[in-house]
């Protein structure tokens, strides 16, 4: 048995027939081919699969694709703006916020929510905000540094810096 779903992903509408048991993360990765969202565990602990569903950070392994029907999803592939890195992406690059890169998409998506909820997030705020995301490489220090740094980039500067970094 399959069911129809229509999900907007990174601004594009997707419509597919899926099994009701299909996890959203598998929909993103295997059905529509967006493999930036990773799967690091099977118990919703690691946060590698975090995406934004209607603006909220959600572990996409905890949601069925059919539950996401009609929603608007942003994945790691969708947070850059017209080819310019999102300030958090840029900050991860500038501050060595990643090593193997596997947890990074989930970390960056979670970071957008941390900074959306808290306009002046301190190092401690960020550390607690990352409670649902596991990294095995970095010891978190440079992830925290990246996220704290991302919020201090003034909007006008953001675009210029992103451009320079991407060049």
């Amino acid at each position, binding site marked *: 048995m399959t069911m129809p779903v229509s999900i907007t992903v990174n601004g594009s509408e997707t419509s597919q027939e899926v*099994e009701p*048991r*299909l996890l959203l993360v598998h929909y993103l*990765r*295997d059905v529509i*081919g*967006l*493999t*930036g*969202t*990773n*799967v*690091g*565990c*099977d*118990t919703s*602990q*690691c946060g*590698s699969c975090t995406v934004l569903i209607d603006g909220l950070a959600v572990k996409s392994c905890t949601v069925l694709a059919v539950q996401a029907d009609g929603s608007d999803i942003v*994945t*790691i*592939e969708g947070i*850059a703006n017209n080819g310019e*890195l999102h300030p958090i*992406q840029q900050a*991860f*690059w*500038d501050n*060595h916020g*990643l*090593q*193997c*890169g*596997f*947890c*990074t*998409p989930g970390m*960056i998506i979670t970071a957008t929510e941390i900074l959306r909820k808290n306009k002046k997030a301190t*190092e*401690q705020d*960020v*550390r*607690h905000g*990352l*409670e649902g*995301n*596991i*990294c*095995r*490489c*970095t*010891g*978190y*220090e*440079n*992830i*925290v540094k990246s996220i704290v740094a991302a919020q201090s980039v003034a909007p006008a500067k953001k675009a210029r810096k992103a451009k320079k*970094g*991407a060049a």
Partner: protein
Amino acid sequence: MGYVGSSVKRVEDPRFIQGKGSYVGNITMPGMVHLAIKRSPYGHAKIKKINIKKAKALAGVVAVFTGQDLLDGGCGPLPCGWNVPNIKTPIHYALTVDKARHVGDGVAVVVAEDPYIAADAVELIDVSYEPLDVVIDARQTTDVGAVLVHDDIPENTSYEWALGDKPACDKAFEEADHIVELDLTNQRLIPNAMEPRACVAQWTDTTEEMIVWTTSQNPQPIRLLLSAFTLFIPEHRLRVISPDVGGGFGSKIFHYPEEVITPWVSRAVNRPAKWVATRSESSITDSQGRDHVTVARMALKKDGEITGLHVSTWANMGAYISTFAPLIPTALYITLFAGLYKMKGIWGEMWGTLTNTVPVDAYRGAGRPEASYLLERLVDVAAHELGIDAVEIRAKNFIGKDEFPYQTPVVFQYDSGDYHALFKKATGLANYAKMRADQVDARESGRLVGVGVCGCIEASGPAPSAVAGSLGAAVGLWESGVVRVHPTGKVTVLTGSHSHGQGHETTFAQVVADELGVPMTDVEVVHGDTGRIPFGMGTYGSRSAAVGGSALVRSAEKIRAKIIKIAAHQLEAAEEDMVYDRAEGKVYVKGSPDKSKPFAELALAAYTAHNIPEGLEPGLEEISFYDPANFTFPNSAHIARIEIDPETGEVELQRYVAVDDVGNVINPMIVEGQIQGGIAQGVGQALWEQGVYDESGQLLTASLMEYAMPRAAAFPKFEIGRIETPSPHNPLGVKGAGEMGTIASTVAVANAVMDALAPLNIRHLDMPLTPNKIWSAMQKVGNAKTAKVEYFGGE
């Protein structure tokens, strides 16, 4: 150009921060089948019958194969690549045939059109098991009546190994003023790289060629093992690719059953095949770490001089001998017992025992954290018992900076170091005197504050091949590096090292750009694909810069030599009069820098070959196979401050100071990142992590719900410093940087916790130092603070 030594931003990052990493699990191909493996739910059981009928009948299932099918189909057992003398290596088939020997042992494989169908079909396979007794503890394997994991290996003992100067050790204990005795366990750890293992295989029947994508730290040795031992596809028709790999920490070095099963299935069904582990599956199949039971004694003079060390260790090997397992508790463990100290009377002996658990092999640090833990715990207990400060007792025993190269009594010859300077920097950064004064104040007000100190040594950058061979290696431990200069002067670097988070695409580009005098943007680093790179040995043991980087330096030197020949010819001067200006990337005759030849022009000249010296081959590409003269010996002084909540037993890590000597540093940002990550992993072992088996052989910590991975809020900001004593025997002067954080932080934090508990006369607790364990120990001593509590083992 001056890239080496600067914190160049990583060139690999743009793809990762945009979700464009090329992990094995991302690969998809038309017609691809998906595999799922039926695994034993028992720790030990005879397999009486496997009924695959229902599974095969499920719509979407392509095939089901058992261990017997793989055997009949020509698969060989997984080999051991490190054979210590007289080792008894049990047969390890990719899918077991007669018995399951640990929970997770593979029994059959389902091949289906879709991973969900494959998972459904696994549930429909009916295996009749006859459960058997299990043995779990490394030391109890030899108990009378203990069940045999393999019928042909008596007392479950695969090998024994010893090293040291026994008479000197005996004499040290006879003449000792003080002897410290300690029973220690170094608990089992689950590596948990964030990317679960995966394998994809594509067989092409017309050309009889196989491509295998695998999450490996070393694709070339995997190809060798697949070709010569397990799959028997000729090496020249077998291409193994490890693209982006999401962390390894040792667990992705080894040749795993699924690397045999997946290509075998691809050939059998003549379709591309894919297997991706779930996290729970990784927990019961990825090689695990540590798991030692140790009885140790240290002999000292009353002034704190360490004179002797006697250690007996039972190292849990699990149910099979993993690829490099016998190396870890032998030549990477007992050889490190001298630590930073001049003591002579060292004796270490160990037994590698088989149990009904997941195989144990290298995990970040691999043998060296176990050595550092026992040595530095003993030194700390000795300091407490003799009433000497933890830094002072260590400093008293240091090898002096003028004594290098220093020959230890346990094989190794340390290359360089300055341990007094190391500790001076660490105690300065920590403000150690104030830390201790604050501790006195805190104790007076009844708080449980602890300061933990450790000084650790590591042997990294394996290894001189002949030495490795004499210690049991079935392979050489050199590394390859190609520098290919294209006609336009752009450069492709092929390295046998493999990056799975270390940032080689950046650091190796820094090295080669500096060696040739070209911009980093003109240098591309290629790794991980046996179809593109030469044979090499991959990345582990903190070897990439020291061995792989050195191979690239050698190749760049050869390129420079050839370029100088061409330039000398064109400028009509003697070769010895030529200057290769690496800052500008040009060559000129000494004294005439204005008449220079730029790098790109000379590269083109090498390829047009219109005007090069007679007898010189055209082209500009060089390969080097660098066999190191020695290991490198990074060393560290780490200081931790913790406080225990007396109500809950919870440890708060308040400060962490790390000063390391990893020799010269190519990219400080990357090295610091390695140290930070290593510290977090080591603290994880000290405080939270443990792979726990119950008495029936069930792994109770088989998912991230039960296995306590460190989280961001558990750590303070690390305070990191370094000193640099360059390694004298490699051209970059580098030492390994990948593992020292882990090696040192476990014992630094354990020492801090025990220091906090010292006023309660709690002398030692085994890791992990969980709230439960600490609180229970505190309840036992109760208010009777004078009661002597010697030891609490286990849970």
